[in-house]
């Protein structure tokens, strides 16, 4: 084992996964972990995000218990699945499974588990996730199933130097309609790290909606990769809200393989202190007649930094694509910064693609106007920020989630939405 400074720390505290993973996948993963240094700023995809700190921490993984998890429950749906430090929590999770859905906890699965073809090869964090995988869920939504209530998956970190490798696999069957809520929280502890991956397949004519809330702590790291494959006439929608975390990195890779698909990516990030949030997305249009829509909005305060990198590919012969991308940012402090990089790579001519990016501060005239109406400086700012986020928040269909986010923002930033 070569001990290179920039590599992931392979210490004896970490044990390889107990889950029955395909041997070949595991072998590839360990070879990537050994041979690939942690990304540095010279790698274009990681230009603005420094993760070398992760190499200095002696990570371990322990099971932990939390007595009361009620504050982490986003929606009072009947179907909640709770993971603590990547391990399935039997006590807190629902026993019920909706009709037409098969849900398996990966550690309780007997047959060999093979990484899907969606997996990114040679990527370090995916390799760590595969080799040290703690647990996860495999969800099959049978064709034609229409879920009334969302399925909620909550992940909580607890303890110092904890690494949690967590995975969710969703197969949305033909003509199904389902909705998921994902929450990532941190109960306590320093230097903990949630490394999560999702593999999502949306079959023909299916509709899948994911609302994701990331609100860990200012001491925790979070790296999340979502690999999504869409078949014809499907609709995939994801709303990502990042409210807390020391370094958060989201990779959304959407492969649109079928015609007449719709893809909606929405996100909001609200940062303060020394937080750093990096949203990377790729929408790869391989075939004709599709629509993709991306809207990310952020507010940065104190010393926080944010990164947005959205990429739209339109492959050769993928005609009649409408792809829109928008990133809007407000800086509240002199020390906050934003790096925005909306990209288009287009190889077909009959397309309508556009992107826009704006950066600015709160409008002084608007603040003045509100103050003349008797509002304090603080509430004037609150109103303007809440108005700024309104269109992203309106993309959430579930009222309970909206309420939960408002509560979080209120607790953390004293913003009343």
């Amino acid at each position, binding site marked *: 084992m070569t001990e290179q400074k920039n590599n992931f720390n392979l210490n004896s505290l970490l044990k390889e996964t107990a889950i029955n993973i395909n041997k070949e996948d595991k072998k590839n993963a360990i070879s990537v972990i050994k041979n690939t240094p942690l990304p540095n700023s010279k790698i*274009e995809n990681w230009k603005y995000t420094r993760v070398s700190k992760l190499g200095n921490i002696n990570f371990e993984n322990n099971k932990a218990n939390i007595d009361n998890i009620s504050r982490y429950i986003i929606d009072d749906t009947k179907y909640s699945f709770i993971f603590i430090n990547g391990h399935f929590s039997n006590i807190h999770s629902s026993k019920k499974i909706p009709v037409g859905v098969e849900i398996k906890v990966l550690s309780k699965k007997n047959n060999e588990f093979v990484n899907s073809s969606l997996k990114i090869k040679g990527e370090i964090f995916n390799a760590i996730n595969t080799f040290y995988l703690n647990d996860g869920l495999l969800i099959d939504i049978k064709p034609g199933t229409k879920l009334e209530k969302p399925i909620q998956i909550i992940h909580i970190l607890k303890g110092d130097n904890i690494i949690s490798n967590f995975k969710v696999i969703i197969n949305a069957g033909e003509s199904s309609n389902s909705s998921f809520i994902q929450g990532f929280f941190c109960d306590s502890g320093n230097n903990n790290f949630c490394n999560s991956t999702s593999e999502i397949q949306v079959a023909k004519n299916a509709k899948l909606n994911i609302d994701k809330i990331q609100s860990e702590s200012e001491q925790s790291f979070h790296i999340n990769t979502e690999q999504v494959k869409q078949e014809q006439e499907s609709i995939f929608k994801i709303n990502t809200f990042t409210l807390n975390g020391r370094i958060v990195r989201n990779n959304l890779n959407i492969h649109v393989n079928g015609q007449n698909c719709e893809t909606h990516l929405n996100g909001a990030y609200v940062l303060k202190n020394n937080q750093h949030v990096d949203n990377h997305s790729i929408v790869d249009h391989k075939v004709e007649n599709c629509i993709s829509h991306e809207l990310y909005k952020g507010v940065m305060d104190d010393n926080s930094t944010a990164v947005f990198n959205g990429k739209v590919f339109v492959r*050769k*012969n993928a*005609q009649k694509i409408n792809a829109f991308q928008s990133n809007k*940012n407000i*800086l*509240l*402090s*002199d*020390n*906050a*910064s*934003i*790096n*925005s*990089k*909306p*990209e*288009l*790579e*287009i*190889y*077909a*001519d*009959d*397309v*309508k*693609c*556009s*992107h*826009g*990016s*704006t*950066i*600015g*501060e709160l409008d002084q005239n608007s603040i003045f106007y509100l103050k003349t109406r008797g509002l304090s400086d603080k509430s004037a700012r609150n109103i303007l920020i809440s108005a700024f986020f309104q269109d992203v928040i309106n993309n959430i269909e579930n009222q309970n989630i909206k309420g939960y986010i408002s509560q979080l923002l209120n607790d953390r930033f004293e913003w009343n939405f």
Partner: protein
Amino acid sequence: MANYTEDQLAQDLKNQEYKFGFTTDIKSDKAPKGLTEDIIKLISSKKQEPEWLLQNRLKAFKIWKSMENPNWAHVKFTEPKFQDISYYAAPKQSKKYESWEDVEPEMKETMKKLGISLEEQKRITGTNVAVDFVMDSVSVATSFQSKLKELGIIFCSFSEAVKEHPNLVKRYMGSVVPPSDNFYAALNSAVFTDGSFCYIPKGVKCPMELSTYFRINEGETGQFERTLVIADEDSYVSYLEGCTAPQRDENQLHAAVVELIAMENAEIKYSTVQNWYPGDKNGLGGIFNFVTKRGLCEKNSKISWTQVETGSAVTWKYPSCILKGDNSIGEFYSVAVTNNFQQADTGTKMIHLGKNTKSTIISKGISAGKSNNSYRGLVQIHKNAKNARNFSQCDSLLMSDECGAHTFPYIECKNKNAKIEHEATTSKIGEDQIFYCLQRGITEEKAISLIVNGYCKEILNKLPMEFAVEAQKLLTISLEGSVG
């Protein structure tokens, strides 16, 4: 330069004439292929350069050796063989024709369409440089020179400037684009052969557009060209580079460096039309155009880049502005056209350092055939750049289903008072637009040319008048045969 006397000017002119007569001699004087310290020493001694310049060259060569050819641009090409190039006598290698009859009919046709006079056509193709024409050119140049001299403006070749105005050159050369900046800038700093030098004294508004086109012996651009434009306080200059006429050149690699310095309250307008040989319809041959262009803005100054890029097989060019002084302004207006197998990766960098700095970026890309056209730009707002303002717009027009149009903007903001807007669109010419023109009796080809010109109008309007007219025709010609 107040102390630029008539005698000096006479000397300048004498040198120019001398150089002109000397051209053929230089040509025969070719250095062996390859790049070593000895070759650099040879270049330097042939040009009778002072010791400091040789040292600069050697330093740049050392830096270049430690660098790697950059590969981040969205272009594909075989790396030029740097040891296979003759670094001296290279600049005067444009293709000469034995007689006017030898010139390819397509080339003649193109020039006819551009509306270039027969005399001019012959001059460009290098056939039969008519004596009276040269005489005429000299007289034109002389009348220009005397007018410029009255105002104290220095406008000469780079090697002349090294001899005549060493202090200015020594002080400003490499101050905006240091040799360590990038691979091709380092190469250029080590082996540059000639270029242009321009100095506008304090408070002078240059009354005419300065063009390399008018300067004797500079109709042919060198392979490793170096341009330095200095606008002293409160001055103004409009500088033209290039020419709309097609340029044939045997050198595949062109790596130029352009440095602009705008001092307090000065304004520089720099316009380029680039129409190097783009390779044939199958993508064979063509020029690699790797240029580093950058301007430095002091307080209240303004630099404006306008470019029309239609030529070259591979273009790699980012005219940039460092907005160092408070209230300074940077502008970038660009039209880049690619056809057949051409590849262009072009854009700008606007570095906002001073307070209240403003920048505007308007980029129009047109891709046709099997070409790839990318916009790559950086807008960087530093911490102290209070109230910085940027507006960027990058539009791409796709004219075939085999071409590509790409946008890679980098926006980095570290100041909360900054306002940045960026927008980009990609689309093709609307069928309804073409239908409307056809309905009015305009042929499809004409319709497309009309629409493309309308699309680029914003940029073409920024060009000096005569240039703009030619550039419009050039666009039409570049896109010929791409309809269908």
